[in-house]
Structures are given as C-alpha cells and as structure tokens.
C-alpha cells in the first residue's frame, strides 16, 4: 500500500514539477508570476488529444507536437501580453495582464470544445507488473521516465549550452546581461518557449494518465504547481522539481490516509507551514535588501 501510494505520488508530483519549472524559470528572469502557464498546460493536453484522435498520430509524435505548439503559444503570449509592459510598468500590472491571458485562453478552449471533460482514448496498452506486493503500471513507468528525461535534459541545457548560460546570466542581473551583449528579449522568449514545452509535456501525460482533459484543468494544476515552485524556492530550478514531487507525494498520502475531501487544501497547507518556518522556500536564497 505504502509503496504503491508513493509511486502514485511520484507520478502526480512529476507532472506538478514539469509545470512548476515553467513558473520558476520565468520568475527567475523577469519576476513575473505567469498565471497563464496553467492554461498553456491545458492547451498542451488538448493538442495532444487532438493529434492522437483526429490525426491518428503515435503518442510520442503527439507529445512532441503538443510541446512544439505550446512553445509557439508561450512565445506568442509573451510577445503580445508581457513584452509591451516590460520596463514601463509595475510588476502587478504584468500580473493582471497574465490573469487576463489566463481567462482568455480558458474561455477560448470552452468555446472550441465545450466545458465538459473529454476522454483520452486508450493509446498505450497498459500492462501492470507486480513486484512483491506492489503493482506498477507501465504508464507510470513511462511518465516517470519521460519526466526524468526532460528534467535532466533541462539541467544539461542550462548548465552546458550557450543559451543556458545566457539564461543564468539574465536571472542573476538582467541589466548587466544586457550590457554584456546578451539579447535579453530573445532569452526571455526562449525561456517562455522551454517552460511552455515542459508544461505541455506534463499536460499530455496527465491527460493520458487520468484519461481526461477539460478546459479548466489548468487552474487548479497551475495553482498547485505555483505552490510547488514557491515551496522549492521560486527561481530555483532544482527547487521546483523538489517542490513538485513533495506536493504530489504528500497530496496522494493525504488522500490515502486522511481524507479525500480535503485533497485540494493539502498542497496549500503544506506550503503555508513550510513558509512560516522557512520563508524563502526549501532551496531559495534569502535576498538581502538594500535601501
């Protein structure tokens, strides 16, 4: 029982982690809580579904297709709704703009598909293996593998490539990066693209795992992923992974051992407790403020 729940928690947690990465990367660079991120995740799930059902594509191709679509969507949103505000307004107006985009995108999907839940067809043949007393589905293994692969890939990209270096520079000091000849706008655009692609991957996998997608799925998932990013220390990439996994695992344990009716409150309760003890999150760095 315990190990099975742990595995369920890890599966859910890895999807939160994938969404949380987008929040934390964008926040690290432009200090914006990108509220539309949950909707990008939802679009990813829908595009994946569309590619599988209408175009009859293989799930792997559909996953990549959804990631590419959301990359473009993320860049478009940044270009239209955030870039015009950058530099000349308070962060709060950018936040409201993000909320506007979020409302726009979820309503758009309601208009296209209707507000109801759509089922994913059975795409992958699910085998269940039993190891000792623990049963593991092949789907869980695939999700965990893909999520790990994406996160490792992200780390390699950020540590080893030139654009990764530019992203790290921008998150340290955006003005200095600009003076060093880094094309800041391009870096920000790229960050949105990567974050959105990861969220899309999370969306497709959650859609397949729970066999359901609906237009408002982004709201709660987005809030929880944001909670995960803050829990890990917002701006920190390993922090987002740890935060996502922690919240996913504890949520599943809470449902299994306490009560399922408080499911949605668990993530936030953990978050508040952690922040009261450690205000900067698990891996966040305390900023020294100067006047």
């Amino acid at each position, binding site marked *: 029982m315990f190990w099975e729940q742990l595995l369920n928690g890890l599966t859910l947690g890895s999807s939160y982690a994938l969404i949380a990465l987008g929040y934390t990367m964008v926040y690290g660079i432009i200090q914006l*809580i990108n509220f539309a991120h949950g909707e990008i995740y939802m679009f990813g799930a829908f595009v994946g579904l569309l590619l599988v059902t209408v175009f009859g594509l293989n799930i792997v191709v559909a996953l990549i297709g959804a990631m590419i679509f959301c990359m473009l969507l993320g860049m478009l949103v940044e270009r239209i709704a955030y870039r015009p505000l950058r530099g000349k307004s308070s962060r709060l107006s950018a936040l409201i703009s993000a909320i506007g985009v979020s409302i726009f995108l979820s309503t758009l999907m309601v208009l296209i598909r209707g507000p109801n839940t759509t089922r994913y067809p059975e795409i992958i043949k699910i085998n269940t293996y039993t190891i000792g007393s623990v049963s593991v589905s092949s789907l869980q293994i695939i999700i965990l593998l893909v999520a790990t692969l994406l996160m490792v890939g992200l780390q390699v990209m950020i540590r080893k490539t030139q654009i990764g270096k530019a992203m790290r520079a921008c998150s340290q000091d955006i003005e200095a990066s600009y003076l060093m000849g880094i094309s800041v706008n391009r870096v920000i655009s790229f960050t949105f693209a990567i974050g959105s692609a990861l969220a899309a991957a999370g969306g497709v996998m959650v859609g397949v795992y729970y066999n359901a997608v609906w237009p408002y799925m982004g709201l709660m998932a987005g809030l929880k992923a944001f909670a995960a990013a803050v829990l890990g220390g917002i701006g920190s990439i390993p922090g987002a992974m740890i935060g996502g996994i922690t919240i996913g695992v504890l949520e599943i344990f809470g449902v299994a051992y306490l009560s399922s009716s408080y499911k949605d409150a668990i993530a936030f309760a953990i978050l508040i407790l952690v922040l009261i003890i450690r*205000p900067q999150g698990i891996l966040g760095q305390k900023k020294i403020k100067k006047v």
Partner: protein
Amino acid sequence: MVEGFLSQFVDAYYLRIMVIIGINIILALGLNLITGVTGQLSMGHAGFMSIGAYTAAILTLQFGLPFGPALVAGACMAGLFGFFIGIPTLRLEGDYLAMVTIGFGEIIRVFFLNFELGGKATGLYGMTKSTTFTTVWILVIIIIFLNAKLLKSRYGRAMYAIREDEIAAEATGINTTLMKVLAFTVGAFLAGLAGGLYAHYMGYIAPKDFAFMKSIEILNMVVLGGMGSIPGSILGAFILTIAPEMLRIVDEYRLLFYGALLVILMIFRPNGLLGNVRIYDIKKRFKKKEV
C-alpha cells in the same frame, strides 16, 4: 421608503447592478488598503469575504440573530482572520505572501465545502433579503469617508511609506509590523462586511461563489483603478462590475473579451486608470480653484 420610491422609477435590473457595485466597492476598498496602499500583495480576499458571508448567514439562519448584529459579527470574524493572516506577512514578502494568501483562500473554500453547518457544497439558502440599496450605499459612503480619513492620517501615510520602501519606512521609526497587521485586519473586516451584505442580498451562498477567480476579480478592480487610490478603487469596482453586464451582448464570448480587456487596459494604462490620485489631492485642487 427610499426602496419603494426607487423601484418605481428605476428598473429592478439596474437597481440590482447598483447594489452589486456598492458591495464590490467595499471589497475593493478593503483590498486597496492591503495591496494598493500598504503594498502587500493579497490574492485571497474572497476568503475573507466568505468568512463574513457564512458567519452572518449562519447567525441569522440558525441562531435567529437580527441582520445588523449578524453583519457586524461576520465582519469581526473576518477581521480576526485578517489579523491572523497578517502575522505571517511579517516574515514573508512579495510573491511568497501572494502564494500564502492564495493558499488561505483555497483552504477556506475547501473548509466550507466540508462544513456541516454551512451546508457543504450546496451552501446556505433562505436568508431573508435584508440588504437593500439604501443600506449598501449608506455603508459605502461611511466607508469611503472613514477610509479617506484613515489614509490622510499618520497611519495612512505610514502605510504608503511601507509600500514605497519598507526598510526606509522602518528606519524613520514606523512600526511596520503594526501597520501591516492593521491593514490586513481592516481590509479583512471590510471584506467580511461585504460578504454579509452579499449573503443577505442574494439569499443564497455556496463555496464556489468565493473561489480563486473572485479574489482575482477584486484584485483586478484595485489594480485597474489605480493602486492606493480611493477614487481608483471605486472606478475599478464600477467598471469591472458593469463590463461583464455590457458584454452580455456578445454572450458566450463575454469572458473572452473580459480577458482581452484586462490585457489591453494594462498595456495602455500600466498604472491603472487613476493611479496615485488621492481624495485629498482632488479636494486640494478644488480649493485652489476657489481661491
């Protein structure tokens, strides 16, 4: 008497909108004190509203209390919660605080979803519709007056100072702890009052009325109107209550336009419509003209 007079000349539909505008003004002024004036980003204002609404409704329904005392009790209860939420803010800043307030709002919503006395997911119904146009607008006028007085006083100026620069404010001898907790308590009190009014106007409340989007709606009013400005909050409440009504012509596209409207307004008026306009500035301007 005024009710009878008004209902003869004014369409019931417009009267209803006016009452809702009044309630929203109270909500916006409360949040304006926390976020606009003191600069503490709070995204769980609907949570305070629901506490006021449920407390007042339970008192009138189950305990047979008259409307007035129940309304005050609801507001006080919300104020008490505001006080407790205010305490963690002493350690948290910016987006960490935003996350805690989102978490608080969600926890309260989930709590009411499981609250026996509050009717769980169905909510409460059958409250006598004691809230009238007159009660709401008399309260609105009193609150605007007191709010303007508060902002002009030492306390108000201290709150503005905290928003501008917390460390500098502290260095000039302002008790920032006290001010922030005060802002949260008063803001929550007003939200509770608005909640009680809302419950006894609609005659029906449910946890979903006070979800995350409601908090966002109130935040939109404050930011759109202009942070820290009383006329701004009033205008913001006015526009964002009327806009969805006006957009009824476009029917199902309503929220689509609403989302787009937020983005466009923020791009063209990044500091809100009446950013930094204060009531006593306006008064001063008029006085100068007289001389």
